[in-house]
């Protein structure tokens, strides 16, 4: 529990007569934020969910040599309901993105997303492809991006540490998932003549109408 203890400010009740003698060296005080984040960052459950080549390196990260379990993240869950973290490991295609968004929506908050590799970040070598989405951040918010094609397992481990750093800085007072009235469910994109981002539906309709007039 070491890093949850507020070492800079020693407990004020060290010599407080109200505290029984035998408890004086056994009581620690800290902020709720630190305790909460300390627990969260060491028990992330990633979702067992691979897309492409990067998934192979993700498996290698979880396997014996690199051993993700050292960070307390070993439990990969196949169900989004039990997962805290989605590792988008590979090329996001238009055919797949409705499923990814749906999985993201099904994850309980707090939830995090790592975009692993060039494809998940920005489309990568396949960006120009007609069935490829130029990065998962067009649809869902991403916390950490990793470069590489595919990133080495060490790079993935690095992104976990970066995410832990991010979690450490979060505060219960400001995190979005405890704010009233906020709902960050992402509308699931629809497969029509091409991929339709429903948030942009009105804009698409107007542009297509203008294009028809000009033609």
């Amino acid at each position, binding site marked *: 529990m070491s890093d949850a203890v507020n070492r800079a400010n020693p407990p004020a009740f060290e010599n407080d007569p109200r505290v029984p003698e035998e408890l004086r060296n056994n009581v620690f005080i800290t902020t709720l934020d630190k305790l909460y984040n300390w627990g969260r960052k060491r028990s992330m459950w990633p979702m067992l969910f691979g897309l492409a080549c990067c998934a192979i390196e993700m498996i290698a990260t979880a396997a014996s040599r690199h051993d993700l379990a050292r960070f307390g993240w070993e439990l990969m869950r196949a169900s989004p309901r039990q997962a805290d973290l989605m590792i988008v490991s590979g090329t996001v295609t238009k055919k797949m993105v409705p499923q990814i968004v749906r999985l993201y929506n099904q994850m309980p908050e707090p939830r995090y997303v790592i975009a692993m590799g060039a494809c998940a970040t920005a489309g990568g070598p396949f960006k120009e492809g007609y069935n490829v989405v*130029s990065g998962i951040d067009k649809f869902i918010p991403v916390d950490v991006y990793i470069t590489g094609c*595919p990133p080495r397992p060490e790079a993935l481990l690095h992104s976990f540490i970066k995410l832990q750093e991010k979690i450490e800085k979060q505060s219960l007072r400001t995190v979005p998932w405890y704010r009233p009235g906020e709902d960050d469910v992402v509308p699931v994109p629809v497969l029509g003549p*091409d991929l339709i981002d429903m948030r942009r539906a009105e804009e698409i*309709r107007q542009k297509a109408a203008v294009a028809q007039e000009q033609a």
Partner: protein
Amino acid sequence: MAEETKPAAPAAPAAKPAAAKPAAGHGATKAPPLAPMTPEMTELQQRFGESVLAPAPYVGLLLSDKSKLVEVATYLRDEMGYDSVTNLTAVDYIKDGYFEVVYHFQRSRGGEPFTLKLRVPRPQGNDLSEPVPSLTSVYAGAEFQEREVYDMFGIPFSNHPDLRRILLWEGFYGWPLRKDWKEAYYEGDTKPFESRWPGGHHQLAEERVPWADNVNYPLGFDPLNFHADPDAGLYDTMAEGVPGLAKRNGNGSTAPQPTGVGAAVSVFDRDRNNLADVDELQTDQIIVNMGPQHPSTHGVLRMVVKLDGETVTDLKLVLGYLHRNHEKIGERNTWLHNIPYTDRLDYICGLANEWGYVLTVEKMMGIKPPERAEYLRVLMAELTRIESHFWAIGFLLNDLGAFYTPALYFITERDLILDLFESVTGSRLMCNYFRFGGVSRDLTEAQLAHAKELAFERIPRKIDELEELLSENEIVKARTVGVGYLPAERSINYSLTGPCLRAAGVPYDIRRVEPYGIYDRFDFEIPVLYGADVYDRYRIRVMEMRQSLKIVQQCLQQMEQTKWGDIQTGKKNYNHRVPAGQAYGRVETPKGELGFYLVSDGGQNAYRYHVRSSSFINLTSLKEMTVGHKVADAVVILGSLDIVLGEVDR
């Protein structure tokens, strides 16, 4: 360990791009040479007459009357022994105004494939072309390949049992591999694009295109007033006996149906009121969608299984969740550009894929790599096979329920092989090691010592250990023996290749039937087993690993006689010119036959770039293997096929 002498990857092309110049070749003045006649071609021509079958440009026979196709194919199969259609694709000759459908028939006893072509006129705009007779009644292995041609070119196949889009979804606008179809981020027909050149100004694709995204919509499209069903037709043939679904198809309900995974999870929910109907309650058939996010599907595959209790009564696959447009991108790329892309086809064994592509281009260019490079190629490709089979067996055990423990042992060994790849090529998975006429780097002393240690000491020991733990394991045997049986004749008819075919008793291995590289120099066997079930597919992989080790060991010994550093024919070149022509080249990857059908018009990129992928075609037979087994076995059978989605969907 790493050596810093020669740069591996080309930094920038030396010459100015010739993209502005009109491409020479198709439709140009000079007529291409006609294919030389082989005895097989003469036999077929005599049978059907010269007016029906004439020599095609470059290779194969051209069938002028497409209504005779089924008859010709039946003759090829029954009288001439071409018992599988190993490759089926199409080429869009836009200047000449026709599509050419290309068939490669293969004899399971070996030899070169037989090429048959037929032409259909090119339609206007987005219309479908004239239908071509389907070969599914003669060759079951044509099913997915014909669907792919339909999906990419809009060529319908008459009498096809289930003609729907396979890699894209129903309702997608356009036929992507037609030459006049432009992707949303279209910048030019050939790379390198002008804007990327020194002096050019590269602009982000998002800033360049009207929708500011990688999308394109038809004129006047209204997304707010639009009903889409990407799965249209998927459940049609499965609906019988399934409550809710049968009803839905019967009355042609117009209410928007949920799509994708959610649609399937509950067939019952969709028509909840019908549950009151006692007659319908009696049936226990349900449809379950497994995937695309599912731990057993080895990636993003979606299996739609119809269950009676726990028994699978029907199965359909939905592919394309990793369709990343390999072929379209490959036709824009220069020849050299494509090598790193082939790594990403079957990402478990990238080096083996590179060989297939490089071999085909070398065939067209008429060059051969030097001796040393040949050995390096064999060394790397066989180590890849071992590494891939370790992975396949580990994950087959995962599917059997031995969750991760066996896989961890095998991944440890695999990592050691990847260490060698990394120190030689700079990357663990995506090695980009092969070049036209050679390879990019030689092995240093330390790397050779590493390879020897693996080949002579460590891996043989580990394979013994693997067999000791698994081959006679009672649980493994109880779950796998007799499961997923597909007899040899059916396997051949399904165009199955690779370890799965050899486990059914057919000694078909490209390294023997059409030797490439220097495989004729090594002493090795093609292992064959006769069980045709999951257990034999596991055992054959172990046997193949031993044979690969044998090759690697001989290779390391014979290599000592070759000159160090002599790894490239000619000088290193960035701007390859491949003479106009067509070629089908293939190699034996750990998954089966990987073929490349390339058409060159003499320009600096491929006119047609088709990948015949074994994972994709092997999946055609999954239904027949699975029906009648329990749903838990469906997972195991899929695992025994050892597919990689990057190669399935491309």
